[in-house]
């Protein structure tokens, strides 16, 4: 079964390609393949009929099944099973499918190009439908179920350029998916309750599954069936779906897809027809649908809609009989299912031919077709008579046993319900059947009769564009022929579906099972049939030939209008909510988000029992409180600070305080790293913001200060409570208790934090340095518009004192000139060069002391950073701290000597540095793989170097070298972007603005450059 399904789906994937080669004859191929599937299904008959239908897969007498593991953790399997019910439906799906494909070969114009995807969708629908009935796993069932929904959506929307088709497609999708979602919940629920997702096992255990939970799960499953099979109140999507091409209507919306709901009911009925809400829902909604559909079919002027509402009516009928849950009803239901598939598909095909040949389906226009198109008329009369339940046709045979089963259900009422209901259903079914006779007659009359207009004059006979050839007529003819054949020889069908019926008990012990036959004798049921014919024909005579537009249904009862109003309201609410929460101000969005993030946990904290920590201390030592006060005042200062740099300093104060707390708590690595980071951040801040005005002013002052303050305080409180609760709830030992020995024995290092970074959790670190490289690239791309690492002039080409000379002397006031002169006198070029590029700076921007100090400590710092890197494995330090320290050394060089100094200090591109860093880190990861180890596995190399002595080199130190390079690259990149490049830009800007007479930016820039 799996193989067949896989082949079918593969064919559907290849179909567009085949279609582009073969064109319209592709449909012959597809019909042949489905015919082969039909024959394949027939080959299962002996095995299926001998098997005991209820036996679980795996038992010797179980029906054929195929089971593959899929998600064993969830109990989901690729389970397929061919039992009698599945077999009957497979025959219907593949048989009618083949007929529809053949019909398509004439329905579409020879040169239609859009039909390739259409053919693929239609074919994969057949495959999905087969999968649906063969699935023996709830999850598989749902997947195929939704697959048919999506394919139905695509097929209805075939004429995508028409609003009506698009809207109908969406409507069908929304309605059936709504039911499908409810069904999913129900399926998962029942699967959990039963402890298995295997349908056959659930059915075997159905007797033990009782209770409210099962009842509710069944209601949810029924909801899926009801929406799929277009029962009231979801019936409206099916008539609208008639926007689809007629082959689709014939296949999906008459023979196959809408039967999925009926199939589901038939599938679950053996075990669950006695669940509390089953019969009220199935019989109540089924009866309502049957009568509403049949009544509205009588009022339609479009012959396709007559059939569509007829289908709605018949689906209600099918649902009732398949859900009734007696032995007779099961037999009748399956028979009726097949009968309906045959006659309704044939009738739709006839409508398609008429539409195709005349260009209209309006029965007020069509006239006289019966006289001209005899073969079509014969087919239609047979199929419509079968629909009306006239002998000697299969529709009659099936309807007889349906009446029989409802009759005996009414005669033998269950103890729990009032006997009245059985008769109510019986009467309702008879009335609806009479209506069915009436609309069948109306269909024939509407499509074929010669009519007169209101004045009594004969309408002109509708001409056919051509004569439908044998291929076009073949499919409906074969289906109609089968209707006759199966009525005369009902034995095979009886044999096929009888095993399924044996799953049910008879309605009462003394009732003998009924059987399919044209003649049961003079029974009350035959009388009922005759009654429906008489009533139906009378009704047709009185009301059936009305051609006036159907009277509008009251708005409160029109399900489609209600649906649209619901969707409309949903849209309106969505827009309203969006306009309230997302009104354009990003700050407001954040406010809403944070408000929810505060309120939700606060609610949980308030309304549930909490574990507060038993042990509380104020502080580890008094020093912690002092640091805490510093940090808090830094934070408050950042809010208060009117100037940008003041605020930045305040935030740095927080950072330094936290570094102190780290140190006191026993985390030297953290303290070291944070101190270095805070220093660099401060410099970077100043560099980046120097061209912005120094005051934090804004054009739109933020309102709502109190609200923000309250939200901040509330959020702080909530997170404090959450932290306290989390600390109180902790019961397990930390996993890191194993880290010390792992670090020493496996990672060969004493610094546990460092070994964690470069060995135990090395993948994290590897990810992190990648992020660093990405962030650095982001910074560079924001500042350098074209390309980064532009090769500037060679150092010797740069004129002395040219960098940072922002204003020509003419633009300065006399006082400023004096100041500048004094400054210059301390920095003449004649002095010894402490830095290579020191001379390039404008004299007023040089600081000799700074240059000297930089000169003295630069190399020491770089050496220290290398020491931190190498020693970090055993003592505080490591790649991050080392890299940051080295970066700080370059920051010094840049600040003391300007951008040319930075270039001289590190003549590599930052990108190359980071790339090499990543490459080295990657290399340490890959290297152990070559020697058969795991990625990033550490190993130790013992070196005995003559003078230096014996050394152990741990491979993970090499990884740390990679980290070091990436961090240095990051800082150099940031310096070149936010430092050098902004220098260049603001100098250009200033030169431009000083010639124009503006001085604002010059001032800010000069102030910072010192």
């Amino acid at each position, binding site marked *: 079964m799996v193989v067949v399904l896989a082949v079918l789906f593969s064919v559907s994937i290849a179909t567009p390609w085949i279609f582009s080669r073969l064109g319209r004859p592709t449909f012959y191929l597809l019909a042949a393949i489905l015919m082969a599937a039909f024959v394949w299904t027939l080959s299962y008959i002996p095995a299926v009929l001998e098997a005991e239908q209820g036996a679980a897969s795996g038992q010797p007498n179980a029906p054929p099944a195929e089971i593959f593991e899929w998600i064993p953790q969830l109990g989901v399997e690729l389970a397929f099973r061919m039992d009698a019910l599945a077999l009957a439906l497979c025959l219907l799906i593949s048989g009618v499918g083949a007929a529809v494909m053949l019909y398509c070969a004439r329905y579409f114009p020879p040169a239609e190009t859009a039909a390739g995807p259409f053919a693929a969708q239609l074919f994969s629908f057949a495959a999905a439908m087969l999968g649906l009935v063969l699935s023996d796993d709830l999850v598989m069932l749902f997947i195929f179920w939704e697959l048919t929904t999506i394919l139905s959506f695509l097929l209805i929307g075939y004429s*995508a*350029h*028409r*609003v009506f088709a698009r809207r109908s497609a969406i409507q069908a999708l929304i309605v059936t998916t709504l039911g499908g979602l409810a069904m999913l919940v129900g399926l998962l629920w029942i699967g959990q309750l039963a402890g298995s997702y295997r349908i056959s096992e659930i059915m075997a255990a159905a007797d033990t599954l009782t209770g409210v939970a099962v009842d509710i799960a069944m209601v949810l499953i029924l909801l899926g069936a009801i929406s799929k099979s277009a029962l009231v109140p979801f019936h409206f999507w099916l008539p609208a779906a008639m926007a689809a091409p007629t082959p689709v209507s014939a296949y999906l919306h008459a023979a196959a897809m809408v039967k999925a709901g009926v199939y589901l009911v038939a599938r679950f009925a053996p075990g669950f027809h006695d669940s509390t809400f089953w019969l009220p829902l199935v019989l109540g909604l089924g009866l309502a649908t049957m009568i509403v559909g049949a009544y509205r079919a009588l009022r339609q002027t479009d012959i396709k809609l007559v059939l569509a509402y007829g289908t709605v009516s018949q689906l209600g009928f099918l649902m009732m009989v398949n859900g009734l849950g007696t032995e007779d009803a099961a037999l009748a239901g399956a028979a009726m299912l097949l009968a309906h598939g045959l006659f309704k598909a044939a009738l739709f095909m006839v409508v398609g031919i008429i*539409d195709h040949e005349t*260009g*209209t*389906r309006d029965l007020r226009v069509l006239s006289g077709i019966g006289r001209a198109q005899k073969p079509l008329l014969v087919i239609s009369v047979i199929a419509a008579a079968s629909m009306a339940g006239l002998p000697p046709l299969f529709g009659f045979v099936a309807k007889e046993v349906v009446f029989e089963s409802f009759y005996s259900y009414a005669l033998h009422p269950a103890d729990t319900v009032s006997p009245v209901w059985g008769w109510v259903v019986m009467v309702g079914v008879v009335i609806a059947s009479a209506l069915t006779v009436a609309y069948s007659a109306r269909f024939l009359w509407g499509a074929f009769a010669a009519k007169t207009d209101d004045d009594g004059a004969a309408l002109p006979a509708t001409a056919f564009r051509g004569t439908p050839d044998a291929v076009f007529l073949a499919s409906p003819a074969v289906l109609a022929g089968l209707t006759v054949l199966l009525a005369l020889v009902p034995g095979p069908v009886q044999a096929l579906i009888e095993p399924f019926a044996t799953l049910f008990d008879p309605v009462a012990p003394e009732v003998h099972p009924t059987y399919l036959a044209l003649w049961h004798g003079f029974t009350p049921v035959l009388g009922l049939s005759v009654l429906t014919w008489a009533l139906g024909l009378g009704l047709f005579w009185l009301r059936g030939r009305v051609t006036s537009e159907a009277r509008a249904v009251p708005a409160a009862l029109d399900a489609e209008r209600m649906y649209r109003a619901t969707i*409309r309201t949903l849209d309106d609410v969505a*827009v309203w909510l*969006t306009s*309230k929460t*997302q*009104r*354009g*101000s*990003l700050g407001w969005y954040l406010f809403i988000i*944070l408000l929810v993030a505060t309120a939700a946990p606060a609610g949980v904290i308030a309304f549930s029992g909490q574990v507060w920590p038993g042990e*509380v201390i*104020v502080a580890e030592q008094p020093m912690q*409180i002092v640091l805490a006060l510093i*940090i808090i005042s830094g*934070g*408050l200062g*950042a809010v208060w600070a009117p100037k940008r740099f003041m*605020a*930045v300093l305040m935030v740095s104060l927080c*950072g330094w305080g936290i570094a102190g*707390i780290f140190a006191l708590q*026993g*985390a030297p690595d*953290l303290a070291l*790293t944070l101190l270095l980071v805070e220093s660099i*951040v401060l410099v970077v*801040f100043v560099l*980046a913001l120097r061209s912005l005005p120094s005051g934090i002013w804004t054009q739109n*002052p933020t309102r709502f200060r109190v609200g*923000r303050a309250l*939200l901040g305080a509330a*959020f*702080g409180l909530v*997170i404090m409570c959450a*932290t*306290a609760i989390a600390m*109180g709830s902790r019961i397990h030992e*930390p996993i890191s208790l194993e*880290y*010390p020995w792992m670090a*020493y024995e496996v990672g060969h290092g*004493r610094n546990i*934090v460092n070994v964690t*970074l470069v060995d135990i959790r090395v993948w*994290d670190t590897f990810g992190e340095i990648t992020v660093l490289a990405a*962030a650095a690239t*982001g*910074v560079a791309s924001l500042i350098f518009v074209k390309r980064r690492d532009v090769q500037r002039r060679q150092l010797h080409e740069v004129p002395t004192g040219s960098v940072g000379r922002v204003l020509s002397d003419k633009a300065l006031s006399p006082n400023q000139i004096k100041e500048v002169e004094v400054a210059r006198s301390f920095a003449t070029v004649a002095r010894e060069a402490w830095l290579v590029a020191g001379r390039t700076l404008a004299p007023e921007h040089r600081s000799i002391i700074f240059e000297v100090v930089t000169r003295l400590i630069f190399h020491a710092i770089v050496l220290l950073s290398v020491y931190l890197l190498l020693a970090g494995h*055993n*003592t505080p330090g490591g790649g991050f701290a080392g890299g940051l320290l080295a970066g700080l050394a370059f920051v010094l060089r840049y600040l003391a000597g300007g951008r040319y100094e930075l270039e001289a200090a590190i003549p590599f591109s930052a990108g190359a540095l980071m790339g090499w860093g990543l490459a080295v880190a990657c290399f340490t990861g890959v290297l152990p793989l070559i020697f058969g180890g795991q990625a990033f596995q550490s190993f130790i190399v013992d070196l005995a170097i003559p003078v230096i002595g014996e050394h152990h080199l741990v491979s993970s130190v090499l990884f740390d070298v990679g980290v070091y390079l990436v*961090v240095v690259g990051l800082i150099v990149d940031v310096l070149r972007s*936010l430092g050098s490049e902004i220098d260049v830009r603001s100098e250009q800007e200033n030169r431009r603005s000083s010639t124009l007479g503006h001085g604002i930016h010059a001032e800010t820039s000069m102030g910072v450059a010192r």
Partner: protein
Amino acid sequence: MTLNLTLLVVMGVMMAVGIYLLLERSLTRVLLGIILISNGVNLLILQSAGRAGESPLVRDGMDAEEYLDPMPQALLLTAIVIAFALVSFMLALIYRSWVLARQDEVADDEEDRRVAEAVGAYDPEEDAEVSTETSEFIDELDPNTGKLRTSEYVPEPEQDTADEGPASKQAEQKEGRK
């Protein structure tokens, strides 16, 4: 576990102040708010290490419990460096915004504002009245008359908007020609 009130309070204050600044319009303050929030989170992670302990450098004769939990420390170390990269990136953003628009503020989203001002959600695709069609072949030539068969659906001008596909345009043009 033992709760350290000082750390708890400092963390709460960092979060509170950070959120206050985060909701500002000035980009610089927003960035400072983010830094303060990340400070708060760092303290939160630090607290999960428990009470103060020995620095996590393996020494002989020391129990594993005596060290300050190294796991949160490793997390913190990466967090600190990542925060630095984030700050640099945001600074570059602020600079860019200043250079391009002379603006260091969070601007309003005009598109959202327009959505917020729109009343109702009328969509002709969904809500316009459309009469049903009585044939699938309305786009084709009628063999009897040689004319186009038209649908009863005549598009209103307001429906003839961007949400109609090109195919529909074509169909309408065809109809219009007739």
